[in-house]
């Protein structure tokens, strides 16, 4: 064999090897049908009726079984069609949704045929589902109280919700009483899912235990405090890019394991496939052991300490509130207490949120400035204040670190660790001087943060626990709510946030991250910006059988 021939042979071998290797890689990444994904949760889902759920565990389950009109883009940067193929808005008042044809309700639930028989979803079902929210006193119906006729319908003065109109089988229209820019964003929230009238009416309040939707999975079994078991919906409407039916998985099991240590051991043993909201105590170990399998990304949420603006010493004392903002070393606390998992906060809006201001000045750690401001505020030698924190090891650790830092300036914080219900009660009645609170996004719009948490219309249980009031901020937020030009909205929200940060009704502490540890045999699983519990599973597959 000549040198030339030998070279050609080697080249051919290398090429064919390369082709085989790439083919193999491509094959390994091709979707595979079958298998069951086991997802860990910390407790049993309290509510499987979308109208009634307000917690993340319930939401995780709901996303498997139900669909909304629209959904959030995985990066939280916009909205995508879901059961609405498209929509248009007229002056921010009238919103018309064009529905996707060929979407069917589940034919069965918990092994029994459903009463709807697997019929197609039409606009009338959407109208029913929205009206049902009011009829069953959904805790989230008021999210869309701007839809015309809400109050009359709530008060029982009308038979139907005037502002929701069925134009034809595939066209649904909402009319609002005032322009509300984030309206479509709100509809991506998991209360606004379609349910079949036949089943919902038949079961009444027990619909919670007989859920029927249009989602990729059908409920097969609910073993309370153990697991919820789902099987694939063979008539699910979504297809993959190649036109193949979805979901790939045969089923999903949401397994309840209350203890984090045990859950992590179960994961290592391969007994669970997905471990969401990964705990701090095993974070570094897991990062080392599992590398990129532990996904983490900024979550649209803010962690803060509110000052009671109605009570001394923080009432009418902006300088004192600013002093405390300068006195806290967020970076150090994040590194030492939170394993560096959060993002030190400069303001209210989290990174990634529409109108997030990268140039916002915020407060850096500056004890000298804090001392000077305290003297100007009339507390040169410090003071004593009560800080209420809800019972959670992470919150307690952060509170103790802040307590130690403030002690350097003579500020004595008395930490009061409370049960969540008690904590909320006290905060909303403005009975403590300082309180811990966090907020994660319901709908991806600054309105959900700035208006809800800091507009004076929302004092107390409606979200503004600091009881902060600044008429200028109220005016800007009110204007931004009805403004439909995105550029103008950015301007209004950024201006409002600058004033809020200067007024310092909170110590702006951190922005959350969301996390998910998944086994290497679980493919195409992507953590969304809206939180681990909304991770889509309809396009995920497993290579382990």
């Amino acid at each position, binding site marked *: 064999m000549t040198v030339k021939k030998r070279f050609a042979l080697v080249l051919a071998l290398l090429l064919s090897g390369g082709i085989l290797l790439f083919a193999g890689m491509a094959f390994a990444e091709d979707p595979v049908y079958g298998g069951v994904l086991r997802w860990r949760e910390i407790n049993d889902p*309290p509510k499987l009726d979308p109208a009634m759920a*307000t917690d993340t565990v319930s939401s995780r389950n709901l996303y498997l079984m139900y669909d909304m009109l629209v959904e959030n883009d995985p990066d939280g940067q916009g909205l995508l069609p879901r059961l609405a193929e498209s929509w248009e808005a007229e002056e921010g008042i009238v919103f018309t949704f064009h529905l996707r044809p060929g979407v069917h309700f589940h034919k069965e639930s918990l092994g029994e045929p459903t009463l709807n028989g697997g019929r197609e979803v039409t606009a009338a079902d959407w109208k029913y589902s929205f009206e049902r929210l009011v009829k069953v006193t959904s805790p989230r119906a008021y999210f869309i109280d701007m839809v015309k006729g809400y109050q009359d319908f709530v008060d029982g003065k009308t038979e139907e919700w005037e502002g929701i109109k069925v134009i034809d089988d595939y066209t649904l229209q909402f009319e609002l009483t005032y322009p509300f820019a984030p309206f479509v964003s709100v509809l991506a929230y998991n209360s606004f899912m379609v349910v079949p009238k036949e089943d919902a009416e038949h079961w009444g309040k027990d619909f919670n235990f007989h859920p029927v939707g249009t989602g990729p999975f059908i409920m097969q079994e609910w073993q309370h405090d153990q697991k919820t078991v789902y099987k694939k919906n063979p008539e699910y409407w979504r297809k993959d890019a190649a036109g193949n039916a979805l979901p790939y998985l045969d089923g999903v099991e949401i397994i309840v394991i209350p203890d984090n240590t045990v859950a992590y051991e179960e994961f290592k043993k391969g007994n669970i496939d997905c471990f969401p909201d990964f705990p701090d105590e095993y974070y570094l170990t897991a990062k080392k052991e599992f590398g990129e399998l532990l996904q983490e990304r900024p979550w649209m949420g803010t962690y803060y300490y509110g000052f009671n603006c109605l009570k001394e010493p923080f009432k009418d004392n902006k300088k004192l509130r600013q002093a405390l903002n300068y006195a806290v070393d967020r970076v150090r606390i994040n590194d030492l207490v939170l394993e560096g998992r959060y993002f030190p906060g400069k303001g209210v809006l989290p990174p990634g949120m529409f109108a997030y201001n990268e140039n916002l000045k915020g407060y850096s750690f500056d004890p000298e400035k804090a001392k000077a401001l305290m003297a100007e505020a009339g507390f040169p030698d410090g003071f004593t204040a009560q800080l209420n924190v809800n019972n959670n090891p992470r919150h307690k650790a952060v509170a103790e670190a802040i307590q130690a830092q403030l002690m350097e300036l003579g500020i004595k914080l008395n930490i009061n660790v409370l049960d969540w219900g008690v904590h909320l009660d006290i905060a909303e009645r403005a009975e403590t001087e300082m309180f811990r609170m966090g907020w994660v996004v319901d709908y991806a719009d600054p309105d959900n943060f700035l208006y809800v948490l800091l507009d004076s219309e929302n004092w107390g249980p409606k979200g503004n626990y600091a009881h902060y009031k600044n008429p200028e901020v109220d005016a800007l937020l009110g204007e931004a709510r009805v403004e439909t030009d995105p550029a103008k909205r950015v301007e209004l929200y950024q201006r409002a946030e600058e004033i809020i940060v200067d007024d310092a009704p909170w110590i702006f502490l951190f922005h959350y991250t969301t996390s998910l540890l998944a086994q290497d045999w679980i493919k195409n699983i992507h953590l969304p910006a809206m939180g681990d519990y909304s991770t889509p599973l309809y396009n995920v597959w497993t290579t382990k059988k």
Partner: protein
Amino acid sequence: MVLPHTISLPFFLENFRGKRLFFGGVAMFAYIIRRLLYTIPVLWGVVTVVFILMAVVPGDPARLMMGQRGDPQTLEKIRADLGLDLPLHQQYLRFLKDILRGDFGKSYRNNEEVTTAIFDRLGATFRLAAWAMVLATMVGVLAGIVSAVKQYSVFDYSAMFIAISGVSAPVFWVGLLLLLVFAYGFNLVPGVGYGDGSWRYLILPVITLGVRPAALIARLTRSCMLEVLNQDYVRTARAKGLSEKVVVGRHALKNAMIPVVTIVGTQISLLLSGAVLTETIFAWPGIGRLAVEALVARDFPMIRGTVISMALIFLIVNIVVDISYGLIDPRVRYD
């Protein structure tokens, strides 16, 4: 031995005094009836105390149902739906009326029937507690007897050292240790959960739950046996030439058992009323976890239901324990 809770049932005793209608006689029957009647005011007391506590403890269930943010109008509507807007005395009367009808209501948290939820979880808890108690009693009594008979031996020292460790070791620590070694280390048993109900899922939680009562029973059996073994009648038995087996088994053990039965009874009640930590570590779907979750959510109907059922279990077990005294010690009278 004079037992507490003696009330007379004149008519019944007048007619049947001294007649042995069944094992234990008329007196025992009357005693059981008396004790059962006693449970009524006790349960009423429990119900009332729980109701008052729930009314005064801060934390509004309607508020918790709404989450962190809620509008006052919806909040009021939810409170009205749950009957929380009624004056307290009306809520109390309604609650008593429902209980008398055997209706504990529906959970605020998930709308589940309280009685169904309790019965669902009670089976799992009962299974766990019963086996834990069998294990604890067998190991505890046996270790206690051998330790007493072989006082100051290596066995005695070792058993009592283990018993002290067992009493002191926190349940969550024992549970995690067992899991790490036997489930995740050697793969001998499955990890957590109820599984398909197989006995293999029971092994570790039963041991975890049984360690503490076993240690208590062992220590108590030992001290009771030591006391009894020094009594004159035991010396007499030995002097009569009876074998050590008969002396210990028939004469000493029976007399040493009364305090042990008491502690076994108390432990059964405690285990049945919810082994919260064990159930949490092993993801066991029992009544303890149900009660804790209800408490966190201020799920009043579920809290009342679980507390009343726990109180009922406690009372029934106590009655059974008191009755068993008479079976062990014939000197015990029920009148």
